[in-house]
């Protein structure tokens, strides 16, 4: 069907001559991911603390979050699109929704896993509830929180691509364009960049966590 023009999977010439567009989509992809995870974290923290402090709220909060998580990404973007329009806002809301469940669940697990003896000791030292949360419980829950943050970030990077359905998919936009024109180099390059971005962000979190938890470095890594 197509002429025998070369259509390689990897082509440096493609990268060179389209770098403006690639870097543009890459930066959209990166900022969208970071923004979504930051917002999700800002919502997940109070929610997890609330779920921990008020027992009967635990199940409804986790239940709602996991039902939301089950909704397929394409369907979620489709459900939002009629109301929030086509573009950035829709994708951002969708991404925050998915990151939320992972974060709430891991923060909650972390908070509940804190050794009761440590809490007892802190209470004995006269810690207030707020000081207990920030100085004792959160540092102790950090490994679990970091694990959640890593999963949420990596899945968000992958999910941004589905934003294509509302015309705002970052690197997914390039994959889709490449698919429409059977341009292998474009698909392969954007796919690789996507995985690389996930890897870089993941490693950054790991490095930040190591710096934030000097006590964990001596024993087994978290």
């Amino acid at each position: 069907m197509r002429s025998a023009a070369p259509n390689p999977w990897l082509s440096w010439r493609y990268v060179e001559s389209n770098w403006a567009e690639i870097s543009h989509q890459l930066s959209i992809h990166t900022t969208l991911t970071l923004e979504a995870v930051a917002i999700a974290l800002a919502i997940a923290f109070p929610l997890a603390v609330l779920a921990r402090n008020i027992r009967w709220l635990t199940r409804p909060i986790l239940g709602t979050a996991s039902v939301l998580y089950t909704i397929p990404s394409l369907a979620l973007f489709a459900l939002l699109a009629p109301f929030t329009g086509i573009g950035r806002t829709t994708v951002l809301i969708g991404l925050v929704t998915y990151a939320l469940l992972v974060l709430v669940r891991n923060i909650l697990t972390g908070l509940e896993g804190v050794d009761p003896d440590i809490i007892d000791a802190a209470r004995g030292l006269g810690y207030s509830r707020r000081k207990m949360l920030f100085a004792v419980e959160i540092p102790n829950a950090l490994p679990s929180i970091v694990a959640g943050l890593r999963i949420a970030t990596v899945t968000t990077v992958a999910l941004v691509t589905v934003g294509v359905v509302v015309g705002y998919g970052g690197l997914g936009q390039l994959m889709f364009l490449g698919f429409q024109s059977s341009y292998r180099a474009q698909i392969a390059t954007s796919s690789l960049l996507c995985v690389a971005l996930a890897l870089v962000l993941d490693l950054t979190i790991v490095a930040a966590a190591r710096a934030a938890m000097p006590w964990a470095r001596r024993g087994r890594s978290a």
Partner: protein
Amino acid sequence: MSMWADAWDYVSTGVNWKGENGLTRPTFDGGWKFAQDSIAALTIEHLYMSAAAVITAAAIALPLGMALGHARRGGGLTVVLSNVSRAMPTLALLTLFAASSIGFGNRAVIIAAAIFAFPPILTNAYTGMANVDADVTEAAVGQGLTRLQVAVRVELPLSWPLIASGLRTSAAQTVATVPLAALVAGGGLGVIINTGLATQRYGQVLAGGVLVAALTLAVDAAMGALQRRLTPLPLRVGARAVA
């Protein structure tokens, strides 16, 4: 809200379910394919694609995971696999396959979906078999059971709740992934959403979204029921905690 009214109009119109010309369409080479204008046909196609993907993945992942778990080695491999699959966008695999010699359409989608269905099944089969209490297997060996008998008659029943929960996760996830097929000229319920977006009929988009979400929740619930059914009675309390 007129959007909801439009969506309701779409799902309550009979011809949208049955299609203008029935559930199937003849193809040029004398075969047939599912009609793309019928909700019923698209749902069947969606379930068929999902089932094909999960069964393909399970056929490889279950024996592999059980064998690795029984031998208690290769745990690192399962972790790496599931991490990599998380970082790989579905759209990337779909478009990569579609542009390769596999060609676009349902086959590319089924292969891509099977790859994503693989890690949860493998991980859970592995974890289930590997985490069986060593005292239990030792007791079984002490009673004269062979290695194979230990695997099949002791470890397998004990790990069944985890294995079933892996299949459930994988199935729900696959049903939720298949809608992306519409982006690469495949079938399934994603077609409704995609067509709606392309023709700016947002009521139809909304209806498609609700249909896909409902199907996913239904499959998850059905697999959950199956999981409880298949779990040996004495293990049911524990199964709850795992799921």
